[in-house]
């Protein structure tokens, strides 16, 4: 059954009042695929992610995950927000456990600890969000999402608020984690390098209003990928150039 089309976005349109944000988006993701949505700000890529998360209801069309229509938010989709969204009154452990408890009735402690170990934060389990760095917070966010063993991991500009060095470290770490867990991922980003480096497919969106999918780029680079080796790799550079051309030649925003 639907391993080829594990996640299906079928004819999805989204309007906010009279504002038409998305018009007829069709997209499918394989099980275990890493898909990035890239576009200029305001193009509706986060809206699309929120639709998959179930935080918004599409005006038209449907989203089907593992043969079931998405009708609202649920723990089968793990969401990582840009601004980490950890609860400040809970420790790292508490934040992850809150998600684990929602899905699993037994082995909460073991699962929570395993999730923290996965993102390399076992030592920080009893610390509160304000006691750890921005990068660590984002890792806890990822641990929280992954601990639920979701069918799909939804990342909304997960590293957008981090400095460049931390971002690179976390990107490498995310690649390692995704490879190990075989997760299906949809990531919203505006970082071209990040999109090409991490993804199996980069979905480029046109500018809103009524944003559509402009182009889809297959990234057939072998994994595991090494950022330094790829930086001078001709295929990587040409893929990167294609995304840049789309964004800055075809979809140039006049602001």
């Amino acid at each position, binding site marked *: 059954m639907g391993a080829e089309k594990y996640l299906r976005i079928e004819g999805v349109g989204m309007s906010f009042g009279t504002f038409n944000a998305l018009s007829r988006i069709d997209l499918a993701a394989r099980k275990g695929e890493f898909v990035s949505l890239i576009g200029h700000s305001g193009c509706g890529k986060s809206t699309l992610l929120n639709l998959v998360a179930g935080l918004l209801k599409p005006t038209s069309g449907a989203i089907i995950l593992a043969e079931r229509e998405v009708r609202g938010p649920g723990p089968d989709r793990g969401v990582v*927000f840009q601004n980490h969204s950890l609860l400040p009154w809970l420790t790292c452990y508490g934040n992850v456990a809150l998600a684990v408890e929602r899905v699993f009735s037994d082995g909460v402690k073991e699962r929570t600890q395993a999730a923290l170990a996965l993102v390399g934060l076992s030592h920080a389990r009893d610390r509160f*969000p304000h006691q750890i760095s921005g990068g660590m917070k984002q890792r806890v966010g990822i641990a929280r999402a992954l601990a639920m063993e979701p069918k799909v991991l939804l990342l909304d500009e997960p590293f957008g608020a981090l400095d460049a060095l931390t971002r690179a470290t976390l990107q490498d770490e995310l690649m390692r984690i995704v490879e190990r867990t075989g997760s299906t991922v949809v990531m919203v980003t505006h970082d071209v390098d990040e999109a090409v480096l991490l993804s199996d497919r980069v979905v480029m969106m046109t500018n809103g209003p009524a944003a559509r999918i402009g182009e889809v780029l297959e990234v057939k680079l072998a994994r595991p990928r090494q950022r330094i080796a790829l930086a001078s790799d001709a295929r990587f550079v040409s893929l990167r150039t294609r995304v840049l051309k789309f964004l800055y030649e075809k979809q140039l925003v006049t602001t």
Partner: protein
Amino acid sequence: MSAVPVPLRSTAAHPAAEVLSRNIEAKTAGTGYRRTAAPDWIVRATAMLLGLLLFGLLWQVVAKQGGRIPEPAMVWQAALRIFADPFYSKGPNDQGIGWNVLRSLERVGIGFGMAAAVGIPLGFMLGRWRFLSDMAAPVVALLRPVSPLAWLPIGLLLFKAANPAAIYVIFICSLWPMIINTAVGVRQVPQDYLNVARVLNLPEWKVFTKILFPAVLPYMITGVRLSIGVAWLVIVAAEMLTGGVGIGFWVWDEWNNLKVEHIIIAIITIGVVGLALEQALVLLARRFSYGC
């Protein structure tokens, strides 16, 4: 609801005090003030002592001018006598200052407790449902600026006794800050946290215990702090009017006996108790302010 109290997240007890202490910090950090060799806390303690001393001196000077104001030394002697046996009881109208303070605190406690029991859930409801909030807005706006003492006759009418009427006044004046602060707190819960609740699809009771309640707690404590502050102000006036045992009544009684030194002792006692209440709640607030 125009007044939007800010939840307490700093160590300063009062918004004005906060500004003041921030200024002091800014100045000592800058070049405006000469740096002293002594540690900061010694300098501050010296300044505080000096302030108290100056206050005492001013008092002494005013007392020397004649009139009925007793000198500090006289008040001190009277205080030693009073606090030698604060818990004596010679009938309903002659009890030690300790009993008077405790009875006042008891009234504040009961009135405030009932106000919290009503005001906090009501605040949650007003914060959660826009329609309810709009419904309550004109009534709250109209009644909030009314002096709590204006409610006293209504209380006497309803309860036909002085003690419940005083408690009722405390209830009324404690109610508004708690309703308003809780409602503001609920409305200020960051959308991010509510989104977490939504993507995790948390059950309603868990949304309340894990997200809403902790997020609103600092605002609620601010409401409690304001309520207790107002209640302690009001109980003195209410007791002056209702009588019975209580620090407010005691002040009035001593005025009738023309024992001015006792009135001054009562003023200082009221101040100390009020300060202690305030500080206790500041400590509580600090315990629940998450550094986020």
